[in-house]
């Protein structure tokens, strides 16, 4: 699953543009990822310009 550093996020929505399952929601200053819908493709991690997102194993949480 994807870990979000919310304090770092600029809410630009670049990740939403790529997400194949449309499981990311970006509001004015809120970002949420629906872990059940996420398929761990990591595209959002790659595209994020400011390194807000990272991958963590589900069991680790």
């Amino acid at each position, binding site marked *: 699953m994807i870990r979000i550093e919310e304090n770092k996020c600029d809410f630009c929505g670049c990740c939403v543009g790529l997400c194949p399952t449309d499981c990311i929601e970006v509001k*004015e200053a809120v970002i949420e990822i629906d872990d059940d819908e996420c398929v761990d493709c990591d595209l959002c991690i790659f595209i994020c310009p*400011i390194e807000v997102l990272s991958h963590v194993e589900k069991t680790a949480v």
Partner: protein
Amino acid sequence: MWKKQQFDVVVVGGGPAGSTFARIAARGGLSVLVLEKDRDIGVPVRCGEAVSDAGLRIFHEPRDRWIKSTITRIKLVAPNESSVEFDMKEKGYILDRRIFDYDLADMAVEEGAIVITKAYVDGLLIDNDYAVGVKGTYLNEPFEVRAKLVVGADGVESRVGRWMGIRTQLKLKDMESAIQKTVSGIDVEPDRFEFYLSKKWAPGGYLWVFPKGRHMANIGLGISGNYAREGKAACRFLDEFLEWKYPQASVLTTVAGGVPVAKTLKQIVANGLMLVGDAARTVNPMTGGGIISAMRSGLLAAETAVELIKNRKDLHMKNLREYEHRWHKIGGRNHERYYRLKEAIFRFSDDDLNRIASRIAAVSVDDRSLLKLFSIAVAQKPTLLIDVVRLFARL
């Protein structure tokens, strides 16, 4: 109160595409509501703010208050830091989009549209397979608004189309991962665009320095998603550049953003629904410029909407396709040529780019033009020839 009304059109997103749509549609006699999720129209400015004079004039006489700098020259910096400069045939501007976007929204209001900020849309009302309105939250209170037509002008992060089954997801290689800082306390030429081309500065993209006067500039870059995958994020590239070139700069604004450098979606309408601007992927894929094309798609979509709604036509996608056809006819072919050029140019190695720069440097200053530049690029990669000739034959 807007929440209690029914509209001809509800527009999701108050950027250049949404405001232009709203202005033309309201002028055509439609009742229009624009919903914007952010606190302010025009802020944050996720944009280098560059436009051409000719592009802007399609829509508006440029106002002084929109313009931070007037640009007449371009400087290209090659990987080996050699540079070439040439004059532009037509001038360009660096806008102040806080003011520009605000004015575009206000012009829509003058024509009779209603614009509301802090209104976040999170779904469609769907009836018989037609979009018939939107739902969302306004200052955290849920709302629903009904309309004959929904317009998705919700930018690179667009979800409106997806809710009607249009696949808008971009491929990694068709998104530029971008970051920009507006810096001050530096010296720049106020009438010159600067572009830095190299894998070390911005792999699969470019770095720009767009002046806002003599001591301030938008400095940003986009890297192709394909390179972003390799693990070095856009912010790292920009920090390295600033550290090297302008270590003393103050940073007044920092924004991240995505630039969809894709072909426009084939399908940009569904029953009761149209997509415009970045949501439809109208950005010029070679330059990353999307302000004017967003406005152009907003205009075309609004003309079709006015025509259909005034004549009480069914808003089935087969009727809304008129907009799709017009967009693809007016912009579509060039758009695809620019897409192919982008693919080729971003594949040039740093050695190729150095060679191209040194060949341009050998051309006398008076003879330098973008066409000349591309001719030289073609010599480097002959398969580009057809696209370049076709594009420039029309300019």
